[in-house]
């Protein structure tokens, strides 16, 4: 290339060599199509692949498993444990296959693969819950089926949290009753105006305080861990869909958590999070109030001890204490008032997993198709000698590369369009933005993806070498694309790598158009990154291209 000066001297047949010759680029692209067209065995799978890809993903993803076979070992056999068993049986997720008396029996079923999940209800579970002491339910999950295990674990977690919240609720009611009693006692003391007859408000407030502190610390921990766990287990879908903005720390009382465009399966879990964060807030408020009462009661007692007579000050303190006690009651009632959850869907109603995954599937299909498909392009033609014939003509390297690459780019664009159409037809995927914009992004990305294939194709001397190189590139990128494994569960360093990949820029831009209805002007950063990558691959393949027969 470098030694070939641009010559404008007419050739004997009137031709001149230009560095970029549109007519020749078109001729090369057309030739590649004619070769492909004649090869039915190659043509057929090439177009079947994107259809297969979307069909497999469409049916395989987005649906939560139902009726996971489960077993229960009940050592308790109390009223409470039977209630737990009934609740488990009523869950759609689990199908209770057996209730056994010992862990060994349950374990055997798990080993045999008859059940995937085993719940173990220990002895004295009911008693412990009633007496507000630490109680534990165990769950054993068959980890060999990781996706089911994941779902079973997080569901068991949610279930346990629900039980806890019910227990907490019971305890809170008891506290509420005690609080009422404190109010009455204080009121009584106030009206009697006789400290001697006052039934020691401080002692009853002390009991209240102790109970509250205990309940609070337990439920606060529970709430925090539940939020954390649920968020983790949902992390994939949540982040994948960029759905949840952030949890606003719920204050006591009613709270609204905005959930943005969440698939239906995630909504219930997110609702749970909302309830717990609000519950946590309410309890914090209660605790603060209870502290106030306790301090007031202390002061009141100090007053009454010092003066040993009723006085206006005592009455004043007592009235403050009464207000605080009322606040505790209302806090408690707020805590078991369900928190309303409003689901906002800025990107349209009823979005499912496939809607969000489609962009990634599309980008990955393009990338895989391009990196796996260009073996024939330069490497194959070099090996079979036909590239020699092209080398003999006055055709510049960049024209050879562009002509070949444009053919494959068009091929990938057509395949991707088919994939989208099949997704729309089979899974009623709705596209918010313009189809033309999608095709433009697809074409831009396909140029970069085929650019990667081209770099490998100019490096390799034959198709076998090409395949070896292509595997090296395509395998890691397949797994970093977020289609098979969520990017958010990767280590931070890998996440950075994944986010820098053009395949994820493309997926991002495509998701923007498909889900959020963005136009190209809103996607300029993504487009700029993709174009820069295209230029990089072109420069690389030009530098590595050898116009020699060695």
């Amino acid at each position, binding site marked *: 290339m470098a*030694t070939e000066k641009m010559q404008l001297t007419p050739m004997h047949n009137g031709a001149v060599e230009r560095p970029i010759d549109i007519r020749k680029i078109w001729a090369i692209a057309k030739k590649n199509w004619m070769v492909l067209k004649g090869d039915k065995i190659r043509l057929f799978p090439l177009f079947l692949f994107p259809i297969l890809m979307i069909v497999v993903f469409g049916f395989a993803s987005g649906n939560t498993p139902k009726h996971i076979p489960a077993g229960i070992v009940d050592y308790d056999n109390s009223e409470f444990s039977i209630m737990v068993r009934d609740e488990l049986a009523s869950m759609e997720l689990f199908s209770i296959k057996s209730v056994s008396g010992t862990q060994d029996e349950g374990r055997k079923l798990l080993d045999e693969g008859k059940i995937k999940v085993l719940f173990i209800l220990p002895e004295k579970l009911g008693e412990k819950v009633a007496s507000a002491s630490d109680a534990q339910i165990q769950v054993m999950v068959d980890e060999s089926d990781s996706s089911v295990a994941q779902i079973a674990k997080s569901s068991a977690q949610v279930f346990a949290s629900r039980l806890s919240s019910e227990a907490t609720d019971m305890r809170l009611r008891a506290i509420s009753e005690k609080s009422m009693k404190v109010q009455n006692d204080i009121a009584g003391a106030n009206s009697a105006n006789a400290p001697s007859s006052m039934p020691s408000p401080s002692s009853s407030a002390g009991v209240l305080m102790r109970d509250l502190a205990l309940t609070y610390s337990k439920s606060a921990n529970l709430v925090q861990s539940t939020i954390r766990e649920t968020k983790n287990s949902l992390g994939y879908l949540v982040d994948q869909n960029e759905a949840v903005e952030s949890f606003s720390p719920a204050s006591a009382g009613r709270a609204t958590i905005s959930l943005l465009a969440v698939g239906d399966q995630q909504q219930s879990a997110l609702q749970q999070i909302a309830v717990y964060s609000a519950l946590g807030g309410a309890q914090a408020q209660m605790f603060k109030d209870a502290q106030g009462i306790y301090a007031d009661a202390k002061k009141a007692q100090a007053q009454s001890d010092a003066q040993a007579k009723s006085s206006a000050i005592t009455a004043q303190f007592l009235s403050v204490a009464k207000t605080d006690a009322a606040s505790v009651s209302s806090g408690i009632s707020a805590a078991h008032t369900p928190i309303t959850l409003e689901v906002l869907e800025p990107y349209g109603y009823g979005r499912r997993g496939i809607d969000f995954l489609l962009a990634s599937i599309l980008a990955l299909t393009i990338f895989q198709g391009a990196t796996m498909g260009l073996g024939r392009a330069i490497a194959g033609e070099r090996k079979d000698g036909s590239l020699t014939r092209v080398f003999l003509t006055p055709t510049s390297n960049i024209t050879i590369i562009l002509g070949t690459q444009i053919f494959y780019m068009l091929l990938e664009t057509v395949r991707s369009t088919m994939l989208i159409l099949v997704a729309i037809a089979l899974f009623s995927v709705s596209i918010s933005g313009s189809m033309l914009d999608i095709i433009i992004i697809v074409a831009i990305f396909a140029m970069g993806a085929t650019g990667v294939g081209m770099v490998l194709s100019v490096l390799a001397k034959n198709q076998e070498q090409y395949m070896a190189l292509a595997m090296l590139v395509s395998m890691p990128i397949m797994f970093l694309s977020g289609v098979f494994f969520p990017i958010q569960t990767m280590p931070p360093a890998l996440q950075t790598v994944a986010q820098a990949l053009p395949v994820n820029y493309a997926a991002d831009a495509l998701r923007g158009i498909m889900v959020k209805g963005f136009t190209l002007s809103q996607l300029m950063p993504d487009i700029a990154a993709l174009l820069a990558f295209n230029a990089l691959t072109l420069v690389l393949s030009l530098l590595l291209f050898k116009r020699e027969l060695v």
Partner: protein
Amino acid sequence: MLFHKIEYSIKCNTGRLMPEGKNGFAIECKDLVRKFGTFTAVDSLTLQVKTGELFGFLGPNGAGKTTTINMLTTLLSPSSGIARVAGFDLATQAALVRSRIGVVPQQFALFEDLTPVENLWYIGELYEMGRGILKMRADELLKIVTLYDKKDIKAGTFSGGMKQRLSVAASLIHSPQILFMDEPTTGLDPQSRLALRELTQKLNQNGITIIYTTHDMEEADKLCQRIGIMDKGKLVAVGTSEQLKSLQGHSHSIQLQISRHDGKLVDELKQLVGAVSASYSGGTLELRVKSLKHGTVHTLTSFLHRKGVDVGDFCILEPTLEEVFISLTKKDLRE
């Protein structure tokens, strides 16, 4: 006859277009070297081929013929040295060289998934030929190489001979001034070989300069106007067939089967016919003469008769290129 008569078909445009070399040379190269690592495939090749010549490179496998062709056709860059092909510098005007040369490479270099006509159209498009001219010329060439009736069958299904013919057609699509043919007859059956040689000669008669490599010495002898003998990357001799043969120092060798011989008799015979050398082995005496005079055979036989020596078979041989080659390279051809 595999190829059609082509008296008028090959319209070469050397006459009306740019002169090739200003000095009438189609190819000039000086000290051309190509190394592959430490191995020198072509070593200081200096050569001139005149416009319109049919020049042959003769040499064993691995002599550097193909490497030379690849360099002259811009498929390999020389390690050092300069060359002008069709009047253009190989290093700086490669595109101009490419547009003026046609190449029949050793491997067919065809698009086997395309039909002959698609092959020719595609290649023609890369030479920026107009659609109309391209179609006409493709049909014309396919008729010449007798592939017209198979023009819509994929080239991949063709036999070696058919592929070679298509390759020739492909190399001529853009009316080149110089045609390089790298061992075009290797692997062909005798009929195809003969037909291809005839076509080569016709093309040359139509004004195309042809560079032809072969390791078949008989072929080179019959076909080429001048021959360059290559061995171990070096050009060891260049000239017409006659010039090369005269390097042997004699024009004919007379071989006689004689019933007895001794040193005296051999000396007498040498003197009698003016032989430059004589040798005897296995009952056959060989006398090499610079020129064969009229009556030499008669003089010899009557002399031997008088001496009482019986003469069995006898023949007169001209030196072959093989002898020249062996004496130049001190080895037989490796194939």
